[in-house]
């Protein structure tokens, strides 16, 4: 882009004319360059190694756009990669669509695109198609991103609620609530002595390794919005089973716990962006845990609970607390409001 245009995004950057092609050729293509995208065709043509294809999409409207441990660019790649990964796929290709507010700083856009490109490269997925729209000032909050992704099923990975059996173990690959509290502390302007960093990461390498070497994995899901509490309840409802988790082994970063306590939040309700809950047969739990602990994204992996036949009219998720008490775990309301004192 030339000097006149390079500071802020203008409506014309999304108008399909000269400014749009400048933006694509100077900002997008150099970062995501690959032979499929480079052809700039209306649809990306990709060859797949398997006919069992998984397809997903997600939109990202995070505020703040930049936070400790990530930004909207990284998040938009990780989110879709993880949705494919936990469904048992090896991610292959992504689309990336930007909806930018008029006046958005080009330098910020470049940082976001760099981050998305680096994350995709690290995860081994290509961004093969995309779109850019610019909306009038006030019609969006800085930038929104949508990604969609396709992946091929890992051989033998048939994951579903139906496969879950009483006695199965529930495993998590590390500390909970890090992403949500990192966002919240940045948004609320709270500084903590120990820094809180989002766990935002692409899980596909870890999940593929687990699925390729362990036959006993029944189900996986990433506990994003709604946290671990929401996913455990989805499993309990989906399979009509009870779940009992144990508070003691649930990995928690003390600074994250302190922040959550201060704002009155339950860490089980808080979002994660680099965590996966794995339901595995009792026989294979140890093997899954070993793979986790030998992987950078699973060093603090733990078995945190078990699936049981439901004894109630409606399935329940219960937690044995650290002091030996018991309480239920419910799906959170969906809007985290800090408490008063």
């Amino acid at each position, binding site marked *: 882009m030339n000097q006149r245009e390079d500071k802020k995004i203008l409506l014309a950057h999304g108008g399909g004319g000269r400014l749009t092609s400048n933006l694509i050729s100077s900002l997008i293509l150099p970062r995501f360059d690959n032979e499929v995208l480079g052809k700039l065709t209306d649809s990306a043509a990709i060859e797949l190694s398997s006919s069992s294809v998984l397809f997903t999409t997600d939109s990202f409207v995070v505020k703040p756009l930049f936070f400790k441990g990530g930004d909207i660019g990284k998040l938009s790649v990780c989110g879709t990669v993880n949705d494919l990964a936990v469904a048992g796929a090896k991610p292959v290709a992504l689309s990336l669509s930007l909806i930018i507010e008029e006046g958005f700083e080009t330098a910020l856009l470049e940082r976001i695109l760099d981050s998305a490109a680096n994350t995709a490269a690290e995860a081994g997925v290509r961004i093969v198609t995309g779109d850019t729209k610019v909306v009038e000032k006030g019609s969006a909050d800085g930038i929104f991103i949508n990604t969609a992704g396709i992946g091929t099923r890992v051989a033998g990975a048939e994951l579903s609620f139906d496969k879950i059996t009483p006695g199965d173990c529930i495993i998590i690959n590390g500390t909970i609530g890090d992403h949500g509290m990192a966002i919240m502390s940045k948004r*609320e*302007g*709270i500084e903590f002595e120990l820094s809180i960093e989002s766990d935002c990461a692409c899980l596909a390498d870890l999940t593929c390794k687990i699925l390729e070497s362990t036959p006993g994995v029944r189900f996986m899901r990433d506990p994003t919005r709604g946290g671990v509490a929401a996913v455990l309840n989805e499993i309990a409802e989906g399979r009509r089973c009870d779940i009992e988790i144990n508070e003691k082994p649930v990995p928690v970063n003390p600074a994250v716990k302190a922040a959550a*306590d201060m704002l*009155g939040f*339950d860490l089980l309700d808080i979002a994660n962006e680099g965590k996966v809950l794995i339901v595995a047969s009792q026989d294979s739990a140890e093997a899954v845990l070993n793979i986790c602990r030998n992987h950078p994204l699973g060093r603090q992996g733990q078995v945190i609970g078990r699936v049981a036949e439901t*004894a*109630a*009219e*409606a399935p*329940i998720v219960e*937690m*044995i*607390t*650290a*002091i*030996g*008490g*018991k*309480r*239920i775990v*419910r799906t959170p*309301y969906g*809007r985290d*409001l*800090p*408490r*008063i*004192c």
Partner: protein
Amino acid sequence: MLNRIMTAHRQMDAACEKVGGQINIMEVCGTHTVSIFRNGIRPTLPRRLKLLSGPGCPVCVTDQGFIDVMLELAQHDDCIIATYGDMVRVPGRAGSLETNHLSNVKVVLSSDDALKLAEKHPDKTVVFIAVGFETTTPATAVAVGEADRKGIENFCVLSGHKLVIPAMRALLSDANNKIDAFLCPGHVSVIIGSEAYGEIVSEFARPCVVAGFEPMQIIEGLAEICRQIVRGTAQVGSVYQGVVSAAGNTTARKIVAEYFEPYDGYWRGLGTIAGGTLRLKDKYKRFDALERFGIEEIPAEELAGCLCGKVLSGLIDPPECGMFENKCTPDTPVGPCMVSSEGACAAWYKYGRIRKRRS
């Protein structure tokens, strides 16, 4: 930890043994209520030791009339309503700040954030919804002081600040009360000091023990109460030493006294409590939202069928309310105790509900 828990439980058993009947301990503070439920403390206690959730949830004790004034102010296009998150979902007679989809409602974490909003939007009047007990009042006082010094005239507060001791006194003055002892709030006690409970102990002979919010501190606070019951004494105690002093934070109290004065305000469920609510002194009345908008706060009846008042007084447990879990849930709250994250009904619903087992 196991040893400490077992020692505490021995104390509780001894007290139950001595009393023979039920022991009712009220945890005054909403943060205690949530911690008790979240940590699954209730099911571990002796059957005869009953915990009553008290009036220490600021949102819950805020009168319906105050909520309606807040919603009325939110209708003013030239106002920005700056509020703590918990207040956003409390229903009034005409919706709530959340369901009314108002763009002029801003959730803030402190009174200072509200004051900054006023500086940023000189063309609007920022109304800070000032609720909370002794922990939040000093910050409101400081904000009013700042506004006064800097001449930030487009800032005002709708004060619903409350005091804990008058509420405890009101509860015990009710002939129907079932309270044998109080587990006193940690944070509030940092400000008022543990000796503030002296008048309750001497006048009503009820043990008052201050505890922090960690599960172990709560269990040991309950054990300390039981120790007193076994000995047949009623004293001020604290298992939160090192944090709470006898005198409390005199500086914070002095700041509050400069700007606020107590009056006989209306509390949800508890009615008018002598000297239980704080309003701005005449000298600072221009920062009082009621004064500025010429609105009168009229005590209002609770919404039909809502038993939050009885819950707050420890007279019933939330499941005894006919609306609990059917008409009133966190998704469709009727009363504030189901809305606030510190509310007893919300805590019962979220953590405490034991679903019916198949027989």
